[in-house]
C-alpha cells in the first residue's frame, strides 16, 4: 500500500512512529526535518500523488484543537475539531482536501498526547457546559485505524470526560476497534452517506453505501450511537427518488432510537478549491451544477439548495424526530 515513508527526525524514535513504520516492512523510510518540506511545496499534483501516496509521520507543533466553522454542530453550543491526520485513504471526487492541500500524501501526527492535553484544557475552560469534538474532517480516522490506532487511544480518553461529545466521521466499515471497547455514550459514530448510485461514481475506493448501512446496524446493535451525515447533498437528475430510497433503506435497518443526530448540507466549496476540482474532473456532471455565489463560495443556486434541504428534511421526518436534525451550511 505505502512504499515511501517520510519521518521527522524529532519523532523517528518514538514508540508510535516505530509502531507505524513496522507495519510497512517494504517501505523506504526517509528522514526529514519538518513535514512541510514534503507536504507543502507548491507545484505538486494532487491527482498524480493520489495514485501512489507516501506516508509522512510528523509532530504537530500547535493548533491541536480548532474552532468548528460557524453554523456547524449537532446540538452543543461549543464545537471544536481536531485532526491527527491530513488526507484520506478514499478518493471521493467532491472531497475538499484535494482543493485544500498541495499534496495527497498521508500526513499523520503521532503526538496524540498533545492533542489530548489540549482537549482537556478546552473541556476545563468550558466548565459545566457540553462541548463537541469532531474528528474525521481532514481524513477518515476509522479507515486508517489499522495503521494509527487513533480511535483505540481516544475512546478510553473520552470515556473520562462525559460532558464532551466525541464524533468520529467516517465511511469506513472497519469495526474492529468498536468490538474491543464497550459502547461509549458520549461517542457518535457518524456515517457520511449518499445514494448508492451516486456513491458508485463519486465515492471512489470507499465502501458501498449498503455496506456502510450494514455496519451502522451492527454498531447500533452493539450499543454505539449513530450519526447520519448527508453532507454533501448532491444534486443530479433524479435526486428526489434517490434520496428517498436512501432514507428508506437506512431506517429499514436502523432503529430511530439508535440515531443520535442527522445532519445535512449541500455541496459547497471555496472558489479556489472548486477550480482545482474542475481541472481534476472535467467530465463530472455533478460538478457542473455549481455556481459562484455573492459570498465567493461555489454552491448550487439558492433555489436548488433550499429545495434539497426542504425535501430531505420532510422525507427524513417520516422516520425520525426533527429535533435531531441539524443543517450545516
Amino acid at each position, binding site marked *: 500500500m505505502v512504499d515511501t515513508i517520510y519521518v521527522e527526525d524529532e519523532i523517528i524514535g518514538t514508540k508510535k512512529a516505530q509502531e507505524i513504520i513496522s507495519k510497512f516492512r517494504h517501505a523506504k523510510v526517509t528522514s526529514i526535518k519538518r513535514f512541510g518540506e514534503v507536504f507543502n511545496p507548491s507545484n505538486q499534483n494532487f491527482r*498524480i500523488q493520489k495514485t501512489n501516496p507516501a506516508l509522512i509521520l510528523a509532530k504537530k507543533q500547535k493548533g491541536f484543537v480548532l474552532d468548528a466553522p460557524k453554523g456547524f454542530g449537532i446540538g452543543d453550543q461549543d464545537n471544536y475539531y481536531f485532526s491527527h491526520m491530513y488526507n484520506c485513504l478514499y478518493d471521493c471526487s467532491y472531497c475538499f482536501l484535494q482543493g485544500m492541500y498541495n499534496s495527497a500524501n498521508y500526513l499523520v501526527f503521532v503526538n496524540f498526547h498533545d492533542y489530548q492535553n489540549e482537549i482537556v484544557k478546552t473541556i476545563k475552560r468550558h466548565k459545566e457546559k457540553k462541548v463537541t469534538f469532531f474528528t474525521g474532517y481532514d481524513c477518515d480516522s476509522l479507515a486508517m485505524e489499522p495503521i494509527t490506532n487513533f480511535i483505540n487511544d481516544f475512546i478510553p480518553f473520552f470515556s473520562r470526560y462525559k460532558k464532551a461529545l466525541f464524533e468520529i466521521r467516517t465511511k469506513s466499515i472497519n469495526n474492529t476497534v468498536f468490538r474491543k471497547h464497550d459502547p461509549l455514550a458520549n461517542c457518535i459514530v457518524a456515517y457520511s452517506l449518499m445514494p448508492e448510485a451516486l456513491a458508485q461514481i463519486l465515492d471512489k475506493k470507499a465502501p458501498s453505501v449498503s455496506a456502510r448501512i450494514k455496519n451502522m446496524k451492527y454498531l447500533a446493535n452493539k450499543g454505539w450511537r449513530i450519526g447520519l451525515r448527508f453532507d454533501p447533498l448532491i444534486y443530479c437528475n433524479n435526486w428526489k427518488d434517490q434520496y428517498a430510497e436512501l432514507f428508506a433503506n437506512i431506517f429499514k435497518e436502523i432503529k430511530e432510537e439508535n440515531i443520535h443526530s442527522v445532519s445535512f448540507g449541500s455541496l459547497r466549496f471555496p472558489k479556489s478549491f472548486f477550480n482545482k476540482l474542475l481541472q481534476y474532473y472535467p467530465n463530472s456532471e455533478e460538478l457542473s451544477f455549481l455556481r459562484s455565489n455573492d459570498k465567493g463560495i461555489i454552491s448550487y443556486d439558492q433555489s436548488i439548495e433550499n429545495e434539497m434541504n426542504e425535501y430531505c428534511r420532510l422525507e427524513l421526518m417520516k422516520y425520525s424526530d426533527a429535533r435531531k436534525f441539524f443543517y450545516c451550511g
Partner: protein
Amino acid sequence: MIEKNFEGVSVRWVIALKGEAEEIIKNYAMERVETTPFPVYKNKDLDMWLILSGIGQLNAVAATSYLYVKSDASYNTIWINFGIVGSRNFKVGDLIQIDKITSSDFQDNYYPSPSAFKNNNIERCNLISVNKPEKLFESDGAYDMEGYGFFSFAKKIAPYELVSVLKIISDAPGTDLSKIDRHRVEILVSKKIQFIEKVLENLLDLQKIIFLQLRDPKYFDEICLQKKFTFSQKVTLRKYLTQWQARFPLRNPLEEIGQRMTASQILKKFSDNLLR
C-alpha cells in the same frame, strides 16, 4: 517507446558531460542544434531536448534555465538530471533514482516525488551535492556536483512529479578518478539504457495525466477567436465550457452563440443553461 502521436510529450535532459550523455543522445536520436553557451541537442520529431551543463551547481542551474527558455518548455515538461556519481554503499554500475537531495552549502532539502519511482524497481537513494569531487564518502548515499542546483530550479518550472534525478554509480572510496574516462562512462550508461527508458516511460504516463488536466475545454479557442474576452472572462468561459462538456456532451456550445452577442452575453447564456 515514446508515443509520437501524443501531443503532450515534452522532455528535457540536463547532463554535465558528453560522455554521460552520449548513449542518451544516440538512443533518442538527438542532433546537436547549438554549441554555445551550452551544447544543446534535439530530436527532430519529438519535443525532446538535451543540454550539456558542464560540472558544478552553478552550471547546472544556468544550463537548466537556459534550456527552459531556449526550448520554450511548457509547464508540463519532464526534466531529468542524469549523470555519474560516487557512493560507498552502492556498486559501480548501479542505476539509482534519487529520493532526497541535500547540499553541502544549503539548508533546504528536496524530495523528488515517489510517483516517479512507481513500478520501476530501481534502487532509491539520497543524493548529496558537493562542490568538489568527493573522496571521503562520510555518509551513505550518492555524491554528485549538479543534482541540487538542477532540482532547485526545475521544481519551479514544472510539477514536482515530472522532475527526476537519475544517476549511475561510477566510483567508490579508493577509486582512481583519473581512470573514469569517457569510454568507461559510456559503457556504464549503455548497460542501463533500458532501465533509463523505463523511468522515462513512467514519467510520460504521469505527464499524460497532467496534460489532460491542463488542456483547454473543447471549443474554447474557437469562441475566443469569435469574440473578445477579457482575462477574467476567459477564466469563466473555460469553467463554463468544462461544465458544458460534462452536462451536454451532445450539444455544441457554438450553436448557442448569436452573431451579435457580446462576451458577457455569451457567458450569461452559458450560465443560465447550466443552472439546472
